[in-house]
């Protein structure tokens, strides 16, 4: 069904994780939805006038207001006695940085909106600039490796935790490496009234610099190393975690990606810190098992 809702022929890069996420989201959501997207890769690759890849109603307004636009749609549907699930599909830059104010407002008002962040860990549409979702150690065009720099020097902002702190009733993370899990979480979100937040890792061959046939492998490795834990939080309680048997060392994830090449070549301290991030995730979420 999702092929009718999201047509081929869009202009996303070969191997892009985002359209994979879109298809999974639509598989889970069905057609009775209204999608809001901010400015970003998704918007420019799927809606160049007069074409559109979308077989569901879709609106783009600005970069930082998708959550507010979604609130308006949801309230209008209620007042006009119409029914549709309102879903935001937004990139990480629009979510964790410039749009976080509007997102906080939507969470706090309790509007019945499913907000999905597809996370490629930088401003990819403008040419791989870092954002607060960029992980520690990654080289981007505005956190480049150099004589005085090992790349991004701050850890990834934990937006799911910020959502939980707002009392959002359903918060989940997912990776396109696990398609059934993504679909299940979209379906679960549908059953819950109020704001929902789902954060999906979508590897970017262009920005992360890996071979375009490695997208799914990398999406899995992020999880298998513990760098991107997959979990569900309902009503503030951690209810489900994807356990990892024989958690892999982070090098296995890093070495496939150009953005981390320098780390493996000579930044030993930073490599240790990245391993510590994975270890802490494993401890916090009980990933090992």
């Amino acid at each position: 069904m999702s092929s009718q809702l999201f047509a081929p022929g869009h202009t996303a890069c070969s191997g892009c994780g985002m359209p994979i996420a879109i298809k999974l989201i639509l598989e889970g959501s069905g057609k009775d939805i209204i999608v809001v997207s901010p400015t970003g890769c998704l918007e420019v690759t799927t809606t160049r006038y007069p074409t559109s890849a979308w077989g569901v109603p879709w609106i783009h307004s600005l970069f930082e207001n998708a959550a507010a636009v979604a609130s308006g749609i949801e309230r209008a549907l209620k007042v006009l006695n119409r029914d549709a699930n309102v879903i935001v599909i937004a990139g990480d830059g629009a979510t964790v940085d410039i749009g976080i104010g509007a997102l906080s407002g939507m969470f706090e008002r309790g509007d019945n909106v499913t907000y999905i962040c597809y996370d490629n860990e930088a401003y990819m549409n403008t040419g791989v600039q870092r954002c607060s979702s960029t992980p520690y150690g990654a080289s981007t065009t505005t956190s480049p490796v150099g004589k005085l720099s090992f790349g991004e020097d701050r850890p990834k902002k934990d937006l799911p935790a910020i959502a939980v702190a707002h009392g959002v009733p359903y918060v989940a993370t997912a990776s396109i490496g696990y398609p059934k899990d993504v679909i299940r979480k979209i379906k679960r979100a549908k059953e819950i009234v109020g704001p929902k937040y789902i954060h999906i890792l979508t590897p970017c061959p262009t920005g992360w610099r890996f071979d375009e046939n490695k997208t799914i492998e990398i999406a899995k490795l992020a999880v298998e190393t513990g760098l991107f834990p997959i979990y569900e939080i309902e009503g503030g309680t951690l209810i489900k975690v994807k356990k990892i048997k024989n958690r892999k060392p982070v090098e296995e994830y890093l070495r496939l990606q150009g953005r981390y090449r320098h780390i493996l070549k000579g930044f030993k301290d930073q490599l240790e810190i990245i391993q510590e991030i994975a270890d802490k995730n494993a401890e916090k979420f009980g990933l090992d098992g």
Partner: protein
Amino acid sequence: MNDNIKILEGSMAIASTVKTCKPNIVSAYPITPQTHIVENIAKMVADGEIKADYIRADSEFSALSTLIGASATGARTYSSTTSQGLALMFEALFNASGMRLPIVMTVVNRALSAPLNIWNDQQDSISVRDAGWIQLYAEDNQEACDLLPIAYKVAEDKEILLPTMCCMDGFILTHTFEPVIIPEESLVDEFLPPFRPDFILDPANPLTFGAYAGPEIYTEFRYQQHNAMIKAEEKIEKAMNEFGEVFGREYGLIDEYRLDDADIVIISMGSLLGTIKDAVDEMREDGIKVGILKITSYRPFPKEKIYNKIKGIEKGIVFEKDVSIGTGAGLLNDLKAALYGKKQTPFLYGFVLGLGGRDVGMNDIKDAVKKVKTLELEDFGFINLRKEVL
């Protein structure tokens, strides 16, 4: 006395009129001196007097963004803001007009920071004159109310589809108790048909809104907005005529006062006109042939109508509460552009006054007219400047 006349604070009068326009969604963020309008509407929603949903937005930017979503879903929408709030909306203003969403907003006119100043001038709305919104300016609270149903009727017209700002001076109008007739709900129903847009967000007919447009098509979108704004001139006039027939109160894109034999025309917008009218009455008693051209519609700017009214008059004096830093002022510059190349146009003087809430008295107006007559003033300047503190 008309039984329907009530003595109401301007903000309450606005809220009561908004109610008669039956918006589905109101979304706003509180900011002085707009607060009483949205407080009154929130109370009406809380009491079930108005069947709208009120979205308590996290900022003015979000307030307008929620209305973009709601309007695209087919809801009639309303907001109100001022000054910094309008500036924060800047990006969304262009987005709403570009998507041709007929949102109506009361702009309570107030000065912009820095220095921080919460009092009245018109710098805020004048500064967004190119955002693709219709802009109507009210002289008094009755007009501020009556412009609302007119605004909805024009904005929602399928040949127009432009968002609209109804501008009223902060404090001077919003916080002043004046006798007003709130448009009767049954008459508003008769005057203003329900909002039934052709294109909405609806799973039964999936459409893409806000697409990405390249250089090969972007200009054509802007051209269509431009044409709709030009077309709005006749639509506003028609709506005002219909309003007059239904409610018995007459308005125009522009209006004149004691202009017939004038050799000086004063041109202005908003609540200044009340003071100017009194000053003109006194000057007329002194034998000075001075009249007034009132501008109600600043966007669209009715260039030909303005020219036809002031053609042949010797001098024009523009009083306005905004400044286009380094070049003049908004209304003055637009008037000069409108009259350029035409014959028998008045020589235009432009004066900035009343910034940041500074009081404007009749003597300020009379003094400026006198000095223009005796050639004591440059053709552009600031009235009432405190030179001792400079």
